[in-house]
């Protein structure tokens, strides 16, 4: 692939790539390190990229492989890397009017990165299960399972789990709708 064209395309993916990195690291500085490593790896392996295929998916694959590779190394060096990451959860301050989203960010940060990446790929970027499975190097069933577990956990932490009164209301509403319009006299 022409390197100038590749450079231009790569620049176009940078902000989304960085947002994906933040979704994995939950830390802007670590995300920037990760993006930098990813760009350098992509650039030095550009001959492996097939022109006409999805560069963003290729970059995502490099980024998440680098993330897990670094994470394994860090775990060998620091026993409680997850604890350290957990301590950084409230990085984004809860500005006025953004309290709910800040809570959501905090809940999201508590999920395992394997669930966060699938939530991002499928829930946000609308990747198919097959595409997400390819990026993550796992089976389609694993993607579905991680997606479901991630959504369930977030729903529970945000207090969005369905309650009985809501179901009752829905049942009553459905019964009224099903019965059709009241006969006119």
């Amino acid at each position, binding site marked *: 692939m022409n390197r100038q064209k590749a450079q231009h395309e790569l620049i176009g993916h*940078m902000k989304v790539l960085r947002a994906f990195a933040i*979704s994995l690291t939950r830390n802007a500085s670590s995300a920037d390190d990760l993006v930098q490593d990813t760009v*350098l790896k992509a650039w030095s*392996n550009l001959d492996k990229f097939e022109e006409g295929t999805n560069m963003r998916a290729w970059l995502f694959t490099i980024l998440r492989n680098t993330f897990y*590779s670094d994470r394994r190394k860090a775990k060998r060096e620091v026993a409680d890397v997850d604890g350290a990451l957990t301590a950084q959860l409230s990085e984004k301050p809860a500005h006025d009017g953004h309290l709910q989203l800040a809570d959501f*960010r905090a809940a*999201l940060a508590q999920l395992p990165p394997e669930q966060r990446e699938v939530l991002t790929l499928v829930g946000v970027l609308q990747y198919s299960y097959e595409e997400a499975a390819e990026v993550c190097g796992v089976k389609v069933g694993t993607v579905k399972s991680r997606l479901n577990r991630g959504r369930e956990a977030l729903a529970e932490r945000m207090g969005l789990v369905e309650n009985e009164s809501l179901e009752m209301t829905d049942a009553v509403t459905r019964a009224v709708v099903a019965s059709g319009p009241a006969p006119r006299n």
Partner: protein
Amino acid sequence: MAKKADKMDVFGQIDANLKRVFEEDAAEDLPPRLLELLEKLDKVEAPVRENANEDAGGNDPS
């Protein structure tokens, strides 16, 4: 069926929040060091680490 419908609604809310978080992050300006890297990319002598090829070529995180 009712439970399933409610669940889909809840998951819809979850996905909407995920999108808001992601869009907020993606809207941030790139930090100077990444901008600099991109500008000078064609001149960068990329240091290839031992596992660089694996990370760039394969999908297996293990």
